[in-house]
Structures are given as C-alpha cells and as structure tokens.
C-alpha cells in the first residue's frame, strides 16, 4: 500500500467558530493508495477523539498499526487498491497538526493552554482547505466513527456539493448530557492533577500523567460495555507476574491501568481538554436553532448511518435520530444497527456485515 505522511502548511488562515483566528496552521496528513486521473476516487476519513492521521498500516516495525487498519487497506472494506484515502490529525490534536504542542507563530512560544478552542465545524473547514490543496473537488466519501462520524455528518451539511457519500458510524448529531458528564469527569481528573499547573505544565517541564491516566481509564469503560467486560475479563484475578500496579486484584483493573498508563505517555492533556470540549460542543442543529431537519435539508450526499447494539456511549437510538431526520427532509439515507462485539469501539473493527455494508455503499451508484 502506497503510504505518504506529510506536514502541510496553510498560510491562508482559518477563522474558528469561537471567534478566534489562526493566521497560519499545519495539518499532519497521511494518505494511502493513489489519486486517479479524474481525482474522483478520494475518501476522507476523520478520526475520533484520541486518534490521529495514522489510520492504516505501519511504516516501520516500531510503529503501531493505524487506528482503522482493520477497515482500510488493500482488499479491505475501504480498499486502497481502488481508493485514495486521506486522514489528517485534527487541529488542536497532539500528533503533528497545529495544537497545544506546537509553536505559536505570533509569539514564537508553545501554544500550550492558549491554543484556541476548536470545534467539529472548524475541523471540517480545515479539511476543506486540505481537499483544495490536494486538488480534490469532490470526495467519493467522507467517513468516520464517533467524533469522526460527527465530522462526516458536518461535511455533508457544510459542503453539500463536495462529497458524494458520507459514512456516519457510532455517532450522534450532538453529544448527550451523559456524554458531557463523562467527559467532565475526565477533565476534572486532569485539572486536579498537581502537575497540570492550570494547563501551563509544558513551561514547568512536567506532565499531568496521573490525571490523564484516570481520564483514559474512565474513557475505556465507556468505550466498552457491561457484557463485553464480563466476557473479556469476568472476575478473573490478575496474574501477579504481569501486574502493572501493585494494588490491582482483578484483570480488568490491570487492563485499565495498562491502557491509562500507555495513553498518558503519549497524549497531551491540553489536547484532551480541547478534543472533549469539541465533542461536547457539537450540535449539528445549532446553526438552525435546534432544528435538525432544517440543517439536514442542505445535504446532497447519500448517507450510510451505522450504529452498534452494544454501544452505550452513542447508542443505536442516536443513529436512528440521524436516519429519521434525513427521511423527514428527503435526504437519501440507509441505517443499519449491527451486532457489535466491542461496545462503542465496534466501529473500529472489521466485522463481516460491517465490511460488506461499507463495500456495498462504496460500490453503489
């Protein structure tokens, strides 16, 4: 699979929903496969909260497989032999695109906590500039799951003529009260970490690792489900030899400790706050005073909405809301609820039906 990773600099500036402006910004972008002559085989995939531009494959032995590697690749659901797949790290992220870890060109200092609030719509606007840069006037599909699904939906709303299809997976038109509540617990854990320093930790050469870790542990509980945790870990005791924390008794505790620890090594706390704030703040109907139908009238793309039965973060009823609003305003939209073995995370995994449905959707006229 032909893979290219590139940092692209944008000098035209971007006005953000918050009213702030980035005069210049960078996007870290990875692409797979080749753009054809007509430039009509391009697919944009949008990453979820903790993902990044590295969606598929791995360029070296040390690198982990991309977050959607089960779905993207030669012969896979999103077939890189046929399609040119593009994924960028969202603004405000911490994997190379402009964000809290980059230098503010105005001050020549790290942005840190001063990186402006970004929104799903801002990301979509930045990706639109990316598509102009790549010379892609119409995406064959824009797709994503969770926070990435919100971007796919927003693409269809913001730039109706710029995409043929949108794959909207395991997501909602807005975060629920419970979603916001969970995110706030995560943020609180970070803010109360003594190393957080009100977001100024970079200048003190410390990292609020324990806060990040706790936030991620909670996150992992919400991405899974009661049944799945039962099946995966049950009440099995942790083998003493592989305990990563002395106090743990059960396997599930060890798993969360491990995942949290790993995450806190790599993720940035200010990014965490920015990303979750963007997720909480998203409401597709915001620009039309809460009428989802009104805003969805603009959509010209064909939609594929997929929910997963074990997802309790963005449960199937959230998917059905999108479908119903689409049907109300004559937008073409299919909706399926799949058996998900992995709770909210199911959208990441290539289950048989999911693969078939994505393929069918991509091949359809």
């Amino acid at each position, binding site marked *: 699979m032909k893979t290219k990773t590139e940092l692209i600099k944008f000098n035209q500036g971007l006005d953000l929903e918050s009213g702030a402006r980035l005069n210049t910004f960078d996007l870290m972008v990875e692409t797979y496969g080749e753009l054809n002559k007509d430039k009509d085989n391009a697919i944009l995939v949008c990453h979820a909260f903790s993902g990044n531009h590295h969606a598929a494959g791995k360029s070296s032995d040390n690198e982990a497989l991309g977050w959607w590697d089960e779905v993207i690749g030669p012969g896979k659901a999103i077939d890189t032999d046929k399609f040119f797949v593009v994924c960028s790290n969202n603004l405000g992220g911490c994997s190379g695109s402009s964000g809290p870890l980059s230098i503010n060109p105005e001050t020549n200092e790290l942005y840190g906590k001063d990186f402006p609030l970004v929104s799903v719509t801002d990301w979509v606007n930045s990706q639109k500039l990316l598509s102009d840069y790549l010379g892609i006037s119409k995406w064959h599909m824009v797709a994503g799951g969770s926070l990435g699904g919100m971007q796919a939906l927003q693409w269809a709303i913001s730039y109706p003529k710029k995409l043929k299809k949108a794959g909207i997976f395991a997501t909602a038109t807005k975060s629920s009260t419970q979603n916001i509540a969970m995110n706030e617990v995560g943020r609180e854990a970070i803010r109360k970490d003594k190393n957080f320093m009100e977001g100024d930790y970079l200048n003190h050469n410390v990292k609020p690792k324990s806060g990040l870790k706790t936030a991620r542990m909670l996150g992992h509980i919400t991405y899974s489900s009661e049944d799945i945790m039962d099946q995966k870990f049950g009440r099995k005791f942790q083998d003493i030899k592989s305990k990563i924390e002395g106090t743990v008794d059960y396997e599930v505790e060890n798993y969360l400790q491990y995942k949290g620890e790993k995450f806190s090594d790599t993720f940035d706390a200010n990014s965490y706050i920015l990303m979750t704030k963007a997720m909480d703040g998203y409401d597709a109907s915001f620009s039309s005073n809460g009428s989802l139908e009104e805003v969805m009238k603009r959509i010209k793309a*064909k939609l594929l909405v997929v929910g997963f039965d074990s997802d309790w973060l963005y449960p199937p009823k959230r998917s059905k809301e999108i*479908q119903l609003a689409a049907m109300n305003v004559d937008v073409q939209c*299919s*909706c399926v609820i799949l058996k998900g073995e992995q709770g909210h995370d199911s959208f990441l995994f290539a289950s048989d039906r999911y693969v078939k*449905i994505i393929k069918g959707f991509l091949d359809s006229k």
Partner: protein
Amino acid sequence: MNTSLIHIIKKWIPEKSKVIDFGCGDGSLLKDLIDEKKIRGYGVEIDHNKIQECILKGISVIEKDIDEGIQDFESCNFDVAVMASSIQCLKEPHLALRKMLKLSKQCIVTLPNLGFWKCRLDLAQGRMPVTPNLPSSWYETKNLHLCTIKDFETLCFEEGFVINEKFFLNDKGAKSAMASTFPNTFASEGIYLIAKK
C-alpha cells in the same frame, strides 16, 4: 413479486411522490420507481442479505422489524406506503394499517386470499391450503393472520378506510374476468389502494 402485481403498484404511485416500502426485499420495486417515476423512496427490511442488496443498488434502506417500527416514521409525511405480501405476517395487521395511514396519505396493500377456491378445496379435503402464493406448509409459514378478500374489505369498512382502487389476480398471477367478478372465490391475490376517510 409477480410482474402484474409490480405493474399495478407502479401504476398507482404518482410521479415524484415520497414512498416508503415496508418489507422492501432487495429494493427492486423502489429502484424501478426511482428510475421510472423519480420518486423519493425508502425501504424497510429486516433480512440482512436483502438489506445488503438494497445498499448495493443505492436504495435507502432502514433495518427494522415492521412489527415494531412503523410508528417511528410518523413525522415523515409519505405520499404512498407500500406493504406487499407482508400484512398477514404482522402481529396486529389492523393496527399496522392504522399506523401506515398515519404516516402516509395512501397505502398499497397486497394480500393472499384464503377464500380462493383452491384454498377452500384444500380445506374441504381436510388439509391446510398450499397454493402458489401460500407456498409454505402450516409449520413453516410466516403467515399469522390470513384472511379472505371479504374479511379484508370488512376490516377496511370497520376501520373507516376508503378503498380507492382494487385489483385481483388469479393463481397464474394474471388478470381474469372470474377473479375480477367474484374475487372472494376466484382471486388468489388482492391489491388495494386505501386511504383514510
């Protein structure tokens, strides 16, 4: 679905109308209607393979059990709702019809006629009817609420539905004078276009 039936359903559906097909199968009817009549169409289906075929055809399909989901679409203002060869499989056909006429101005229903003479003959011989449009044996059939043409029209009367059009086919799936004149005995299949009063 046989071709005369499809032909009649197509004839009754106005150009550019908004159509929902309950039990849309592989989406062929909707596909034809989109191509020929420029309708805005949606299908509802529960069978995984058929859903897959709909998606491949580019038909908007919603995975749902009709028994549970009709009322979900109440806000959508359809012009025509189609329920072809499925009404007798539902748990509560009369409620399903009421719900369909809440979300749509008109409703096309097709149903097998248990009063068809061959069915009567089977029953007279002491066996459950097995005919071309009631092909399954009693233990395999999905049909829960079979009725005769007379039964269906009585239900429409009692529920206050108007029958705007009706059409009858014999067991060859064709129009016949006998089926049209004495449908309760000679029609194998009835096709109705109904609306609320």
